[in-house]
């Protein structure tokens, strides 16, 4: 319907006349510059913040950064895979508990447990994506729901390792002698900034572009040697690795892990954060998404029952606006979904 209308507009000139909606593939150069500068400014402000502010704000922000990473992991899956997962809490928990368990049972610090968490997240993502590799993404979403629901029972009943309801504490420093609040904050910030830079580079890479083609036209991608199973498995493994990283950072930044942080809803909340950030993989989008899902429950604690309604409305509104196909879309900086 939409495409046929576009085709009638077409004339034999190379480019549509003025008024065409700019596609996200190539933001205006000025806009891109603006974005870069804005990101640099944000990073600069965040970098000097610890000198100016109290430790509670720093703690809150560290959690924001960790959640922003989790939001990014979902956004990457949506943007490059066109898939939805509501079970990313599983991979986040995997990363978080890897750090906690390696410290508690093996006395290992973050220098070892962080890479281990990444590796575990990668393997888990791979194993999870393989069964549905040739099928529609719907099956992945359904399976991810099972992932989210089995997480609490695993955490609670594997008490010997996970500490059950109580959870575990993380107390080892990354760099001994530096203030605890400081190293938690800077580790989370550094991880977030580095991941955003890596993702920006990924967008122009061979693999990134192949995934974008496979998302839009799986059969065309197949004709250029990009198979659906390769696309599905690689993007999911990548996304799960990121989620696991986010969990490791979260565990270190909050110095505790417990099943409370990984309920049935956590995975859906990461998706909410991603949708609110318009599934962007930029620093700003991630911070908005991570900020919303961290701060709203914190500040609306008294009105906690309204949080699901608020989030649900956000999902609906953003999705409806992004797909309205009319003038409303012009208010969005990029294309959602």
């Amino acid at each position, binding site marked *: 319907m939409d495409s046929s209308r576009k085709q009638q507009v077409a004339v034999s000139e190379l480019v549509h006349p003025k008024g065409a909606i700019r596609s996200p593939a190539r933001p205006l150069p000025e806009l891109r510059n603006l974005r870069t500068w804005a990101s640099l400014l944000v990073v600069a402000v965040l970098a000097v913040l610890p000198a100016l502010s109290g430790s509670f704000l720093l703690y809150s922000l560290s959690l924001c950064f960790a959640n922003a990473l989790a939001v990014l992991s979902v956004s990457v899956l949506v943007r490059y895979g066109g898939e939805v997962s509501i079970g990313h809490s599983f991979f986040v928990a995997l990363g978080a508990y890897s750090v906690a368990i390696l410290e508690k049972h093996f006395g290992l610090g973050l220098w070892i447990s962080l890479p281990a968490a990444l590796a575990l997240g990668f393997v888990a993502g791979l194993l999870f994506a393989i*069964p549905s590799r040739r099928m529609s993404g719907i099956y992945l979403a359904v*399976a991810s729901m099972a992932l989210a629901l089995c997480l609490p*029972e695993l955490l609670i009943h594997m008490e010997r390792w996970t500490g059950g309801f109580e959870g575990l504490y993380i107390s080892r420093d990354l760099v001994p002698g530096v203030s605890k609040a400081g190293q938690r904050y800077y580790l989370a910030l550094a991880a977030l900034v580095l991941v955003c830079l890596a993702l920006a580079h990924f967008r122009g890479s061979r693999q990134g572009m192949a995934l974008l083609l496979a998302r839009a036209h799986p059969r065309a991608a197949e004709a250029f040697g990009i198979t659906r199973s390769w696309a599905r498995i690689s993007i999911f493994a990548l996304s799960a690795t990121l989620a696991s990283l986010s969990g490791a950072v979260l565990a270190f930044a909050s110095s505790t892990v417990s099943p409370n942080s990984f309920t049935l809803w956590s995975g859906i909340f990461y998706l909410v954060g991603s949708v609110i950030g318009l599934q962007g993989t930029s620093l700003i989008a991630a911070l908005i998404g991570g900020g919303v899902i961290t701060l709203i429950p914190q500040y609306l604690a008294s009105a906690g029952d309204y949080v699901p309604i608020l989030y*649900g409305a956000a999902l609906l509104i953003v*999705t409806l606006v992004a*797909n309205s196909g009319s003038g409303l879309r012009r208010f969005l900086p990029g294309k959602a979904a």
Partner: protein
Amino acid sequence: MSALSALPQDLPPLLWSGLVSGCLYGLGALGLVMVFKSSKVVNFAHGNLAGLAAFLVYGFSSGVLLNLSWGSAVALALGLTAIIGVLGYAVIAPLVFKSDLTSTIATLGIGLILQGTIQIVFGAEIVSLELPIPSFGFGLGSLRITAYDLTVLAVTALMIGGLFFVIERTRLGIAFRAVCSNPFASRVCGLNLRLVHLFSWVSGAVLGLVAALLIVPTTFLSSTTVASFMLTAFTAAVVGGFSSLPGAAVGGIVVGIAMNLFSFYVSPEFMNTFLLGVIMLTLNFFPDGLLEKAAGGRV
């Protein structure tokens, strides 16, 4: 060895109660599959709506909201549930022909709103909701068959029978089948796609309500039991191939029995993990469901 020697004793009750609860999972799965077949949307709000519906029956009959008889409470809740089903469809109607991704996110949004409504109206408490049926039962070997079991089987048979009658024998059913097999062609032929979608959404909601009402007496009513029920219904749908109505019913029974066996012989604590395993194994080895032997035609 003791487990093996006790097998003739243990197995029949396990199979029987698995069959009974499996019928309910099948009803839940049928609603999912009907919606998916006709509108290609996986309705993640299905369980939340069923949960809300059960809470409404509780609210209307317990005095929390109203103080009606059980029958009137069910009738009122049924009406409201159907209306919510229509509203839910109306909200996502503009997204139905977009990507899987978009409609999935939208149904999750609806699910969250319904969930929040439950929490606000009924709080996070756990309530019990009994069926108004006599509590008789009789033994049959090592089996014990109760009025509840017979009610579930009868209601399931009635619902499935009614559904298949509508689909096989009425004009709406013919339109439904046509839309399921080729939405584009049926639109060209002048069939009202939206009407068919509404039919499937409302039927799904009603099936969900019935299943929830029947399952609640065996557990309790809380948001988490509904979430688990939803997962079981999804598993049943996957086992049945996700786009086959008979598959959904059979899938429900298979999953119900398998869950009973797992919980008795292995562990009752890792039920959802077991369901995850069932989903993964089905997707890997029977991507079109247990019933479908022929390959191809997958979505």
